[in-house]
C-alpha cells in the first residue's frame, strides 16, 4: 500500500493510465493509513475499546496495541538473554530443568511446558503458535490463543481491572499482572473485618 502511494507520487505516467475510481480508492486507502499511523503513534486517547492499530508486516495483518502496565518480572530476571544466548543448545523435549526451581508449572502442565510459550532461541521474547515472536508487553496475544473469549472481554474492558478515567484514558493490566502465567489460579485472600453487628453499635 505504501509502496503504491510512494510510486504514485513519483511516476506521473502511471497517473495517466489509472482510471479515476482507482485513484480515488487509492487516495482513501492512503488517507486511512496515514490516520492509523497517527493514531498508533500519537497520544492514546481511548473512549472505550478503540485503540490504535499497527501493521505486523511479517504477517501482513494489523494488530492492536493496548496501554498496559509493565510486565511483572521478578527482580533481576529480565532480560533473559543475560544468561540464555541465541546459539545455546536447547533440549526441546519437555523435561524438568535445574534452574528456575521456584517456578512450579500449574497451567495445563500435562500438555504444556516452558518452550510452548518462551521462545527457545530468543529468551527475551515469547512466541505465538505459528512461531511469530512477541514482546512480553504483548503477552495477552499469547494468552488469547487459548483463552479467546477472555481476550475479547479483556479488550472490551470487561475482564480484569482497568484504572484511569471512565471518560478518557485508561490503563490496562497485563494478564500476567494478576494471573501468574505459571500458576494462574487466584490464591484466596484474607477478607477484611466483617461489619459490626447492629446490637454492638453503641
Amino acid at each position, binding site marked *: 500500500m505504501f509502496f503504491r502511494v510512494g510510486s504514485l507520487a513519483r511516476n506521473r505516467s502511471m497517473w495517466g493510465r489509472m482510471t479515476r475510481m482507482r485513484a480515488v480508492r487509492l487516495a482513501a486507502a492512503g488517507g486511512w493509513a496515514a490516520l492509523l499511523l497517527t493514531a498508533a503513534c500519537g497520544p492514546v486517547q481511548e473512549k472505550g475499546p478503540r485503540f490504535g492499530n499497527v501493521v505486523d508486516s511479517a504477517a501482513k495483518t494489523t494488530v492492536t496495541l493496548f496501554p498496559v502496565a509493565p510486565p511483572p518480572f521478578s527482580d533481576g530476571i529480565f532480560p533473559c538473554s543475560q544468561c540464555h544466548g541465541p546459539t545455546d543448545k536447547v533440549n526441546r523435549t519437555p523435561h524438568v530443568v535445574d534452574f528456575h526451581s521456584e517456578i512450579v508449572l500449574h497451567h495445563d502442565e500435562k500438555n504444556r511446558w516452558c518452550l510452548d510459550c518462551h521462545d527457545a532461541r530468543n529468551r527475551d521474547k515469547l512466541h505465538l503458535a505459528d512461531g511469530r515472536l512477541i514482546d512480553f508487553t504483548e503477552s495477552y496475544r499469547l494468552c488469547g490463543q487459548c483463552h479467546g473469549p477472555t481476550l475479547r472481554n479483556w479488550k472490551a474492558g470487561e475482564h480484569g481491572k482497568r484504572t484511569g478515567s471512565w471518560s478518557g484514558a485508561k490503563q490496562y493490566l497485563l494478564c500476567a499482572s494478576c494471573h501468574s502465567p505459571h500458576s494462574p489460579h487466584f490464591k484466596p485472600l484474607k477478607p477484611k473485618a466483617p461489619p459490626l453487628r447492629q*446490637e454492638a*453499635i453503641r
Partner: protein
Amino acid sequence: MSFIRKTSNFVTGTARMAFLGGNKVYYAWLFLLVACIVQALFAYAHQYERGLISTNMRDSVSWGFYIGNFTFLVGVAAAAVLLVIPAYVYDWKPIKEVALFGEMLAVASIVMCLLFVLVDMGRPDRFWHILPGIGHMHMPSSIMAWDSIVLNVYLAINLIVASYLVYCAYHRIPYNKKIVVPLVIFSIPMAVSIHTVTAFLYNGMASRPYWNSAILAPRFIASAFCSGPALLLILFQILRKVSAFEIKDEAIHKVAELMAYAMGFNLFLFGAEIFREYYSNTHHLVHYEYLFSGLHGKASPIALYAWMSLAFAIISFLLFLIPRTRRMPLTMNIGCVLIYLSVYIEKGIALIIPGFTPDQLGQVYAYVPSMIELRVAAGVFGVGFLLFTLMVKVSVVILFERDDQPVHA
C-alpha cells in the same frame, strides 16, 4: 362583655375548674402524670444530646417504639368519629352527649402523635423544613407530607369544635350550629383520612412486603374503630361514679356493639392476611415466622406478645358480640381492656417490627425498645393523658356540675 374579656374569663375559669375542686385520687393521678412527664424530659434531654443511638433502633429496624405508638394513637384519634357518625348523621340522641368527649380524645391523641413524631426525628430542630411556605414540602408524592397535613387539619377541626362547644357552654350561650355541624361532618372523612393516609405510609412501600398489601388500610380502620372507643367506655363509667356525668346505658351498649362488629371485621381481615401468607408460602412468609415464632433457630422477642394480642382480640370479640356479656359491666370492662391491649400490641409491635425483620437484605436484628425509649414514650403518654384529663374535668364541671339543671352538651 367583649370577646377578649370573654376569652380571658374562659381561660382563667376553666383553669380553675381543671385544677381545683378535685378529690385525692384526682390529684394523685395528676401528680403521677406530671412525674411521668418530668422524668421523660430528662430522658429526652439525654436522647437529644447523644442522638437516637440511645434508642435501640438501628439501620435494620429504623422505626420502632415511637412510630409504633404514633400509629396506634392515630387510630385512637380516628375512632372519635365512631361516636360522632351515629350522633350527627343519624341524629341518635343517646350518643350526642358523649361526642364532645370523643373529640377531646382525638385532640389529646393527635397531640401525642405529633410528639411521638418529634421525638423520633433525627433533626427535630429542622421540623420547619416540612412546613409549606417557609420549608419545602414534597407534595404530592410524599405520603409523610400528606400525613402531616391531614393530622394537623384534623387536630385543628377537633380543637376548634371542642373548645367552641365548651366555650359556649361555659358562657351559657347557644352554640352556632352553622359553625359546628359542617366542621363535625367534615371531621368524619378527615378521621377516615388520617388513618388511611397513615396506612398508605406503610403499604406504599414495595420494599417491605409485610406492609405492601392493599388490605392494610381497611385493617387500620377496623382496628382503630374497635380500640378507640374502649378508652371512652371505661372513662364514662368512671365519670359516672365520681361526678355528675350522665350517660345512658343504651349509649354504652350501642358503642360496645359497634366495637364488636369492628373487631369482627378486623379479625376477618387478619385471617385473610394469614391465609395469603401461609397458603402462598413465598419468601415473604419470613416476616410472619418472625412475628409468631422466630428465625434461624432463635426465638423472637415479640412472639409472646403477638399470640397474646390474637388471644385478647378473639376473647374481646366474643365478649362484645354476645349481648349478655356486652351488657354485664364486668365482662364489658374486661373486654375493653383486652381490646385496647390487643390493638396496642397489633399496631405498635406486631405491625412495625416484623416489617423490618428480616431487613431488605435478609439480616435479622432483634429489636426491643431501650429504657430511654420507654421513658420518653411514658412522658408523651403523660402529656396526652394530662391534656385529656384536664379537658374532661373542665367539661364535666361545665356540663354536669355547675348548674342545678345540668346542660346536656
